[in-house]
């Protein structure tokens, strides 16, 4: 249940299955997939000396190289490969497709391989993007794969791509799960059905029946629109929200006075120890952690200067590769965190976040409304942040008598916020208003949950900025503790009515369970953190959770995706 290892298994095989000098050809989509899970030096050590794009027509002929291709079975890639095989530029071809190949595609390739350059064709199911060991996504972007056709229904292209990504993940992990979906979501059901059909159709790959204790829970973003709208304070989530992480890279070129070597930085958990340790730290702890990190770097640089004892030198030389990486890391993380703190103070995010958390977690209509009015009128707060707060208000107090959403929208307009942005309030309400949601995320719909909410409020929280827990995490926690079994059973029906119940009942909760959670409509980095916490908490029960989604959202990308479809 480690998406990273699963993908690395394939990339290793791609690099090592053939020996000799190799060139690796990738297509538009496999390039980021490979670069997320492998490194240049790793490939070099496996005799992959050149990496190029298949659709690059200006490659030179090098017959003494073997060619390893890793491609998605798309029409464009197949056509490019046909062109390549008609006029082969390299010696032997070893072709790996990232997903199930259509028969017609094999035939087309066979007909055009007259020079018999192809030595091997295999399917290696690494057809998903790995963000971290416990997080993968299908890489749907509004530009290439718009998610919605109209309203809450799949765009066919996006559905196909999602099925491919999920099925590839299951094959990479060798699972044939029991599929469960959120009852109120037509999209989740559709995805589940497509997947079930594929698994039945390709029984030779998946196995004939759900053999293991893996559950695939397909959730819908519309049941929790709050999490992607909040400002999060953990390192990885902040990078996503404030700087944007595209396939493991952060672009810092627009940042004022950035040094040349940190214009674009890579984030890789398996190489970067600091990042691995700090990715879930909140912003305060992050500063402390970075200080320690820099101190340790400085102490090492000092030893670099006074290399008088033999042992010193030896250690230095032996630690040399490590050392270089480390010094690169120091400047990288210093640049990243410096930029984050600049943005935080420039956009007054602390104040914004305090209100957001209050809106998300506590039922205090009049106080919230007052604070919100003040925030909207505040010229120092960015328009996007104002709109996010108003959306949160509109979602929470949608059914409240004294709802002042209309007034707030007018206030926004009068403060000079763009009309398109203001209309996002309605867009989100159409997408995930109270009648679209099935669970009571604000815990304000009936007297019992209100009571619970008050009780929760009394408990108090240690940090006002991190009160909110994603709905997904709360649901999983209930599931794993064995609470509210019947209710969840009702909300998360299985496609197969004979499947054994989700919760065995009793107080023990779930054990020995692998759970893959897939969110239609995108996941957030905060949910990744929550899942990591759960994984740690329930590891003794032998429960492992893997999180996935159609894409990874920041508040901006979330709203962009909705704006195209749910415009009123």
């Amino acid at each position: 249940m480690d998406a990273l290892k699963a993908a690395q298994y394939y990339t290793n095989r791609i690099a090592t299955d053939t020996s000799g000098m190799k060139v690796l050809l990738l297509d538009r989509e496999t390039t980021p997939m490979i670069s997320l899970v492998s490194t240049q030096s790793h490939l070099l050590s496996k005799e992959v000396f050149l990496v190029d794009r298949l659709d690059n027509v200006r490659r030179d002929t090098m017959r003494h190289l073997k060619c390893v291709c890793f491609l998605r079975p798309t029409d464009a890639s197949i056509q490019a490969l046909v062109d390549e095989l008609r006029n082969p530029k390299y010696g032997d071809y070893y072709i790996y497709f990232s997903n199930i190949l259509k028969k017609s595609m094999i035939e087309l390739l066979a007909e055009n391989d007259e020079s018999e350059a192809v030595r091997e064709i295999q399917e290696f199911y690494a057809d998903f993007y790995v963000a971290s060991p416990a997080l993968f996504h299908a890489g749907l972007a509004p530009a290439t794969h718009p998610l919605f056709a109209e309203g809450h229904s799949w765009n066919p292209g996006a559905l196909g791509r999602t099925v491919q990504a999920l099925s590839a993940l299951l094959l990479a992990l060798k699972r044939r799960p029991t599929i469960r979906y959120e009852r109120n979501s037509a999209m989740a059901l559709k995805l589940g059905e497509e997947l079930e059909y594929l698994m039945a159709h390709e029984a030779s790959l998946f196995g004939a029946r759900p053999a293991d204790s893996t559950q695939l829970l397909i959730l819908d973003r519309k049941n929790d629109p709050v999490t992607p709208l909040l400002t999060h304070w953990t390192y990885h989530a902040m990078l996503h929200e404030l700087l944007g992480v595209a396939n493991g890279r952060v672009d810092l070129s627009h940042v004022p006075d950035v040094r040349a070597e940190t214009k674009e930085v890579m984030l890789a958990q398996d190489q970067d120890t600091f990042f691995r340790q700090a990715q879930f730290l909140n912003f305060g702890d992050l500063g402390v952690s970075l200080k320690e990190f820099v101190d340790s770097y400085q102490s090492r640089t000092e030893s670099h200067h006074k290399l008088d004892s033999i042992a010193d030198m030896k250690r230095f030389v032996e630690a040399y590769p490590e050392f270089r990486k480390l010094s690169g890391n120091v400047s990288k993380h210093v640049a990243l965190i410096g930029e984050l703190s600049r943005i935080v103070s420039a956009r007054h995010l602390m104040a914004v976040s305090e209100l957001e958390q209050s809106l998300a977690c506590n039922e205090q209509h009049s106080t919230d409304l007052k604070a919100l009015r003040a925030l909207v009128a505040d010229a120092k707060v960015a328009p996007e942040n104002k709109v996010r707060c108003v959306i949160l208000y509109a979602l929470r107090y949608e059914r409240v008598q004294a709802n002042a959403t209309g007034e707030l929208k007018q206030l926004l307009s009068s403060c000079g916020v763009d009309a398109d942005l203001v209309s996002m309030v309605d867009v989100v309400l159409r997408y995930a208003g109270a009648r679209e949601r099935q669970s009571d995320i604000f815990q304000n719909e009936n007297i019992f949950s209100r009571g619970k909410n008050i009780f929760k409020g009394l408990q108090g929280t240690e940090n006002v900025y991190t009160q909110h827990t994603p709905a997904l995490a709360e649901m999983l926690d209930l599931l794993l503790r064995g609470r509210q079994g019947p209710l969840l059973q009702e909300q998360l029906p299985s496609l197969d009515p004979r499947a054994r119940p989700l919760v065995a009942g009793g107080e023990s909760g779930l054990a020995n369970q692998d759970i893959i959670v897939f969110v239609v409509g995108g996941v957030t980095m905060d949910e990744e953190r929550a899942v990591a916490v759960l994984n740690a908490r329930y590891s003794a029960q032998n429960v492992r959770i893997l999180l996935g989604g159609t894409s990874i959202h920041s508040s901006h990308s979330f709203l962009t995706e909705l704006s195209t479809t749910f415009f009123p």
Partner: protein
Amino acid sequence: MRRSTVSLGALQTPAAAGLRANSMSGDDAGPDVARDSLRCPICGAMAPSLFALNVHLDDMHFAGDGGPRHHMPHGAEETAGHSGHAGFAPAAGLAAEGVRSRYASQDDLEEVKGAILGFFRGAGKAVRGLSGSAPSGSPSATSSDHGNEDTHAQAPHDGGWRVGDKDGADRDLVTRAHWQQHRPGARCSVPACGLVLTPHTDALNCRCCGRLMCGRHCDRQVRLSATAQLARRGGVYCRACDECHTRAAGGTAGQTRDLTRGFVHLRRRAVNTAVLEGNRIEKRLEKLALVHGAAQPSAGPSTSAAAASALVLGAQPGARSRALQAAEQEVVAWEDDALAASCPFCGKAFGRLASRRHHCRLCGRVVCGRAGCSTLLAVPLPAAGGQGFSPSRCADIRACCECERTVIRHRNRLARAVPQAPDLVRLYAQIRASMALVEEILPVFNALAMRLRNLDEGRAGAMPDLPRAARVRKQLTAAFGDMDQASKRIAMLPAGTPSSSRLHEAVRRAVAQYLQLHMFPLTMLPRAPHRPLGTRSPDLVPRAPRPQHVHPAPGSSGEPTESPTGSIPSSTSTVNAHGARLPPIDGGSGSAGGSARGSIESSTADCSGSPVPGPATGGGGNGEGGGKPGMAVALANGVGGAATGIASSLLSLVAAPRRRARDEGADRDRLIQQALAADPEKEQRIAAMPLNEKMASLGVLRDQRQRVLGYIGDAQRGRRLEDAASLQASLDDLDVELSLIERSL
């Protein structure tokens, strides 16, 4: 009628004569030209179509030596390799792996293996004894038994598991209820294999997943509990398939599907036709070349084409060209002009003057002469001696665009076999060979070094392994040196295209990365205790000057690799990078370089083995251990910390030549005398060098000398006297070389 005159000579059988008579009447019939054109011009047999007739001509009447040469290149039968674990070793797989890493040398491994096996057998007996006394019954009963055994056996033996035999000593311990039944005609369940299971292939059940497989795919071992679940602790070692083995190891071996077989099957159809067509056309070309060769006056009479005599007889040019056409039609029958109204490719109608009819000499069809429809292929004619074809004499043969494409594709297919960039391939093969050697002996060295270090800490007395370690280290050094050299040469190869320069650079980086990763252990050999001079361990000395390559370097057999200068202009930079260690270069003096290398090796052995230096370094004994890495650090810093920099400076450190300290006061002439005594022809060789070469090497040598002087200064300041001494030795060499060249100028 010209056709019949030519063919008459070939007529032999009465049946053919009958046919002939038959077609005579056809000739008279006038309009029936189509049928006439489909008659074989040689034997007169009828063919249903032009294509069939031409095939018949190819198959029946080819005078050439070839015979059918349809070679079908084999597709990739060999699919994904089966990794690791040869055979079904009785030793537990995991345990054996652990052992291998700790006891690296082969004989050690054997010893340990034996001991472990003996131990496990004992343990196995203990378990079996227990299970024998237990009442055997349902799986559940045995499972509880097994649990008991586990606890029983664990107490004395620390892990009560034993080796499962091939034919099922695990029978009583692990359930077999889940096994797939073996029926005749069953296939191996590994999708990529799918072999029908016979006694020949073995039919085995994976004890873990229960599926049936052939022997090759069921040769791993995993620990199983009584219910055939993977057990993390305890359990019985059982036969298992690859998949269960990876699962047990905690790895995630993803699903894969191999489509190669189906693909090759589909491709064979496409390729078959293409290859057949290509070969056929190729053979026709060959025949046409023979015909044209016979027609040209310079051709010798030795050509064996049937029409040769007839052609030579026809003296005047008009008749010659007619005869040539006739001969061509014996190779390929021509479509009749009257039947072709328009070109089959461009569709234009033929005219008397504007769009003339041409015949494709390879398929016989009528085509027009436009560039897209037909071209003139230049075909090399037979060589004068009758052997092969000479590219200088060519005949132009008209071919339609289809035949031309077939020819080109066929030629491409043949050309694929010829590798480009042989230099790169050869050098890379050297690197790989060195890597393989390192991979083989580095574990040995590590084990030895570790043992020596432990010994060192314990008692600083006898170190029996030291000479051996020194030898291994020497081998390693040589291998690393070879790799570095080869990669440098690759980086210096002329790059025709941007990608090839990228490729060369990548290879260089990969090797630097490899060196960086693998060379550190070399510095870890402890110092030997001081021993008086002359009592060196006996097997170190005779072996030290052993010449050059202690390992076989495939691909370099015919190559004078002794000379590090080689023939490539990159030698200067190579020398610069290793200023301290390489002997001076002189044009192509292989023997000098070779002897110097030999002494490097001997000195390396000294340096690691017993650091008993001459009087000059006697006092520096304590400092030298640290001096070596210190120098590496200094050099690494000097080159800005680049990866290649550190690798090469380490190399220069490890291979730094240390010779017996020479008498410091010895003057240059005496050194020259010595050098000349060692290599008498040297002076002549230098004298024989062209002037510009002399000047060039003079420049390089002077540059080097400056460098070495600098290094010596550094070393003396840092009290690394041993390094200084070795540097001094190479300085002396440089001086000799310089003065020899200067004298000859």
